[in-house]
């Protein structure tokens, strides 16, 4: 259904995406595109959505190249990142135009607009002009336009940006619903937790190349190999240090003012042990702060690891 064969994308001299190959099967499911800013997620999305042709290699969606190909584009819905809308139009007017540009008309178009607005919870506010809408509302309208023509492949670039928690949960529910109805969804994010709530399959991108591909547990396992740093503040730092060196997950230890900085692998194994030790009164803990849990640090580590 989706096949990339050494597909790459260049912006002049800048390589947006290194030659990348992967395949996603026919049928429903959610695939997460995970990577920090500048990883190549949007480059990949632009190739998949047919906005740009590959600079090298091949992109095949439903058996055909998507760039300027109406037969493919009619089966794709795109929600790009960014808060861009045509000035001077309101939601309904714009959706109507987008629907017509997707081949809908008459009562079928009216029904599609109603259905899409209902799905994103905007059925009573779509008449507002874009300038009068909140960022979250505009994001929902953007989502609605992608659903209008009931695409088989839905591509969402950072769809949760600007959404309040409730809207975020609703969107996740909607995506699960669409996935179980047989739609293939590709969703990009730089937040692992967000993607992990949604998907069984992740593509990990970093600095324009596909770093890893697999299920969430597989990726988690890969990420677990990255030692995270924890700052454990305590009245008795030496006791914390003594306890820590007995743990198999400890990779490095250094002392700071009133705290021990622990570098540990497999934090999901280590943290329950730490919790138990505190509960048993073995460690007089004052505070616990993770120092480098951001995704960039993990990706930096993985890149070095892969090299």
């Amino acid at each position, binding site marked *: 259904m989706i096949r990339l064969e050494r597909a790459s994308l260049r912006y002049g001299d800048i390589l*947006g995406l290194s030659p990348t190959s992967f395949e996603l099967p026919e049928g429903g499911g959610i695939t997460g595109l995970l*990577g920090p*800013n*500048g*990883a*190549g*997620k*949007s*480059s990949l*999305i*632009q190739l998949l*959505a*047919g*906005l*740009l*042709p590959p600079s090298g290699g091949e992109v095949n969606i439903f058996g055909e190249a998507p*760039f*300027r190909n*109406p*037969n493919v*584009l*009619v*089966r*794709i819905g*795109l929600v*790009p*990142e*960014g808060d*861009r*809308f*045509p*000035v*001077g*139009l*309101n939601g309904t*007017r*714009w959706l*109507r*135009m*987008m629907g*017509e*540009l*997707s*081949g*809908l*008309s008459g009562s079928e178009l009216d029904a599609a607009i109603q259905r899409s607005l209902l799905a994103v919870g905007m059925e009573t506010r779509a008449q507002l002009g874009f300038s009068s809408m909140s960022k979250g509302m505009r994001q929902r309208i953007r989502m609605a*336009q992608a659903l209008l*023509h*009931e*695409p*088989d492949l839905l591509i969402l*670039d*950072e769809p949760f940006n600007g959404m309040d928690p409730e809207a975020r949960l609703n969107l996740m529910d909607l995506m699960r619903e669409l996935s179980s109805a047989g739609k293939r969804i590709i969703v*990009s994010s*730089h937040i692992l937790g967000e993607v992990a709530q949604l998907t069984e399959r992740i593509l990990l991108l970093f600095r324009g190349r596909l770093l890893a591909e697999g299920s969430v547990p597989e990726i988690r396992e890969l990420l677990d190999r990255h030692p995270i740093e924890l700052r454990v503040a305590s009245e008795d730092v030496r006791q914390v240090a003594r306890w820590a060196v007995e743990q198999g997950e400890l990779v490095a230890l250094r002392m700071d003012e009133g705290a021990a900085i622990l570098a540990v692998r497999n934090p999901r194994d280590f943290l329950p042990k730490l919790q138990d030790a505190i509960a048993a009164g073995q460690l007089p803990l004052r505070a616990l702060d993770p120092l480098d849990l951001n995704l960039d640090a993990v990706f930096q580590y993985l890149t070095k690891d892969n090299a």
Partner: protein
Amino acid sequence: MSTRAIPSPIQTMQAVARGYLPRIFQVRGWVLAAIPVVPVLLSLALTALLRVQGEHIPPALYLTAFHGVLAKFMLPIMALVAAPAGIREDIEQRTIPLMLARPSTIWMLPFGKGLLWYGWGAIWLVVACAGLLGLGSSPEGFLYQATAMVFAYWAILAFMSLLGLVFKRGTLWGALYLFIWDPLVRIFPGNLQRITFVHYIESIAGTRSSDVAASQLLAQEQITTPVGLAILILVVFGLVCWALCGWKLQATALGLAGSESEG
């Protein structure tokens, strides 16, 4: 699997024109309407005032208003105001990727949006020409003047839209063409006059205004193109420009830009 129909070129054109219809009733649309109408209204008000005061009104005032104001300044300004509101606006606003990701006929998008601004501008050009009747123009003169304006606007708007798609500073190049090259028609010898819009406007609408006197140092003899042929040339030129706009958009890979493509 979707079995959705792919929109035809005509459906694409209709969708874009309908979708952007509210835009012509907003500030830019009313500015566009005011450009040809306000000078004519002011002229009418001024002549009415002069008549009340018993002053002599030159009988060919409408010719000066048409050739010296409407054709020379207002028409090019209208094209320069309307063209950036066409598909160029979607490129600058970065809303174009959402249209390009649709299964529509991409080459029809510039024409669909341009048609809207063409239609709106043409209406007000006709209104402005009708106003010239109050300045002494005849019904027959009105017919030719309105025809000249409507077809010249078609060609000029298409040309400006093309410049806007080809060049980053298309409006600037357009302004240079319209305000520097076109007026040179007065000193262009023979067939060189045929590569100006003014030539076709004057061929359709009749005599030049009185501001072009034979005494001008470099003035050349005016050549004319038969009315029917002049109209045909403007129509064909406009169509060619719209086709080139469509080709340019179809052939140019326009992706997300700025922060949207950082990831």
